[in-house]
């Protein structure tokens, strides 16, 4: 994390409502401005997450996705506009964030994460937000963060439903402790097969951003050792306590890169179904 010595008058004005918070203050705001958060996925979760991170003044946001914007993305991927259709999602998000907050540097990475690149793509992150749409991707990010020792949060949504878990490697239970193995990909249980309302990933992504903000500033308590399950059609929220689950193979030997030898199946490269672009670029 970069050390920010002072806030400018403009920053004091911009972030005044966060500085007012007892849990953040000027010290917390400087930590946010000095932090790097990596968002894996620039879709339904990645848009609201990166939007909230940028507005809050996270100094560097690295956003990773090789996908391009499609018209059917727009009802839930709020940072992409109609005239962005066909563009790389990360480029679309970078433009919006740069217009929103000049304090934020966006590292737009036009790639999908896989076993070979994930350590490099997550390097130097103070926090990771997993915002992909496939089981394998979620497990890969989970397992890599456990090994790299980076705190992170994972969310998944479909229809009006969602689940969220935050993890502090070495201290709290992770996605693999909870589910052990990725479920087989079921197109009928995906956003493209079963549908999704934008508010579901919108809310989940915002909660993920808030978890990052709390982790960086030390504010409050992270949503660890429990799974939040929300149902927006009934407006109900449930919490599953997972603190007593036995550790998974990734957590048990976290000094070893479990993810390097695990078979994530055909879903890597992950995050979507289209072929990867010809050129992988970081801009």
């Amino acid at each position: 994390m970069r050390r920010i010595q002072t806030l400018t008058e403009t920053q004091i004005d911009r972030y005044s409502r966060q500085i007012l918070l007892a849990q953040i203050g000027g010290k917390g705001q400087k930590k946010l401005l000095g932090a790097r958060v990596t968002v894996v996925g620039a879709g339904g979760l990645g848009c609201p997450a990166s939007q909230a991170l940028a507005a809050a003044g996270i100094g560097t946001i690295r956003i990773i996705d090789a996908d391009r914007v499609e018209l059917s993305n727009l009802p839930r991927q709020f940072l992409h506009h109609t005239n962005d259709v066909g563009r790389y999602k990360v480029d679309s998000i970078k433009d919006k964030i740069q217009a929103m907050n000049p304090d934020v540097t966006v590292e737009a990475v036009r790639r999908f994460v896989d076993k070979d690149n994930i350590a490099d793509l997550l390097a130097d992150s103070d926090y990771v937000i997993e915002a992909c749409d496939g089981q394998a991707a979620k497990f890969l990010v989970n397992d890599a963060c456990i090994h790299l020792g980076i705190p992170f949060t994972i969310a998944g949504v479909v229809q009006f439903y969602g689940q969220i878990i935050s993890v502090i490697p070495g201290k709290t239970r992770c996605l693999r402790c909870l589910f052990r193995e990725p479920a087989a990909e079921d197109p009928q249980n995906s956003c493209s097969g079963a549908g999704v309302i934008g508010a579901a990933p919108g809310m989940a992504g915002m909660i993920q951003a808030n978890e990052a903000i709390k982790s960086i500033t030390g504010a409050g308590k992270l949503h660890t050792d429990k799974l939040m399950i929300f149902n927006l059609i009934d407006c109900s929220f449930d919490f599953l306590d997972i603190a007593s689950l036995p550790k998974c193979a990734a957590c048990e030997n976290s000094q070893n890169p479990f993810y390097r030898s695990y078979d994530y199946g055909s879903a890597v490269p992950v995050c979507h179904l289209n072929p990867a672009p010809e050129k992988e670029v970081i801009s």
Partner: protein
Amino acid sequence: MTSKNNPSADVTIDLRGKKCPMTFVYTKLELERLDPGQILEILLNYAPSFTNVPRSVQLQELGEVISESAETGGEKTLWIKKKLNN
């Protein structure tokens, strides 16, 4: 506004012309910079801040108002001692 009887301040900030909540924002940022037990003097001329700033300082347990001037010409001075071990 500081008289001989007023506490001796380690730092003074002039917040005249600023309104709530920025009066408290600047007070809080300055208290974060001070060492525990040091005294911050703040000059105010926005009437709601005369009560809002002390209340917020107390609510967030940043310190205590150890003295205040009489209100003169719409202005007021507060002296805040930063909480020990803050």
